[in-house]
């Protein structure tokens, strides 16, 4: 049976409506806190309740200092959340508000300049906008 698995090629990451150039990997991550509610009656197994969720998106790309100084670096000093959008290749779009929490660059002697963006999502995410 053939698979309908999607591929990453063609995916677009946008900040404030502008596509970020040279992105080659996007990794969203969602976690919920677990709240330990174990008590004397729990026996030998701990009990939990689900707490608040948080989402972080990391994006790897080829680092272009010339174009990313405005497309990316300028967002590092933004203090207000901005509209982010990930356009997956199957036509699904993820939208959320967030801010650029971190940026890591890498300039190896024998390799290409690359970078990683760390985006902290604030609030909920819309998975089909």
């Amino acid at each position: 049976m053939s698979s309908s698995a999607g591929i990453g090629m063609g995916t677009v990451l946008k900040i404030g409506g502008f596509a970020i150039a040279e992105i080659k990997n996007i990794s969203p991550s969602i976690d919920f806190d677990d709240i330990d509610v174990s008590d004397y009656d729990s026996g030998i197994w701990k009990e939990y309740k689900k707490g608040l969720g948080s989402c972080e998106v990391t994006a790897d790309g080829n680092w272009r200092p010339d174009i990313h100084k405005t497309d990316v670096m300028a967002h590092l000093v933004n203090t207000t959340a901005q509209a982010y959008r990930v356009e997956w290749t199957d036509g699904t779009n993820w939208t959320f508000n967030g801010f650029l929490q971190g940026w890591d660059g890498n300039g190896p002697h024998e390799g290409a300049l690359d970078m990683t963006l760390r985006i902290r999502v604030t609030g909920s995410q819309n998975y089909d906008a």
Partner: protein
Amino acid sequence: MIDSAIRTILLADATISGLVGTKIRARVAHDADALPYLVYIRGRLLPLLNYQGQSGTCSARFEIQSWSDEYSTVLTLGKAVRDALDAYSAGGTVGADTILGVVIEDEDGAYEPPVKQNDQGVFGSVVSIKAWFLE
């Protein structure tokens, strides 16, 4: 093309051209080529990719072989090849080609022994490089 740019750089070096003239061949030397001569072989070319496809930046590996019946000549040629290409370690333009950088990876020695009793062996030097360029 990066291949012709590499050849142009080697040809422009006075030490190299003084020893081999224009006998700098792609992949295989000509039948009429007398020693010494250079052969360059392009290996793996890697286009730098992103989600939209090829970024326009590529890297390609090359082997530049120097061949001579004089051991000292291949040592001179090997050093000259490294120096000529190392001048582009921080990039430059060669004609219409933009080279972003050249990394000299290593230089290896080679020797082709004689096949017949009265033949002479041939000494070689193989310089391996990685060239980054815009396509």
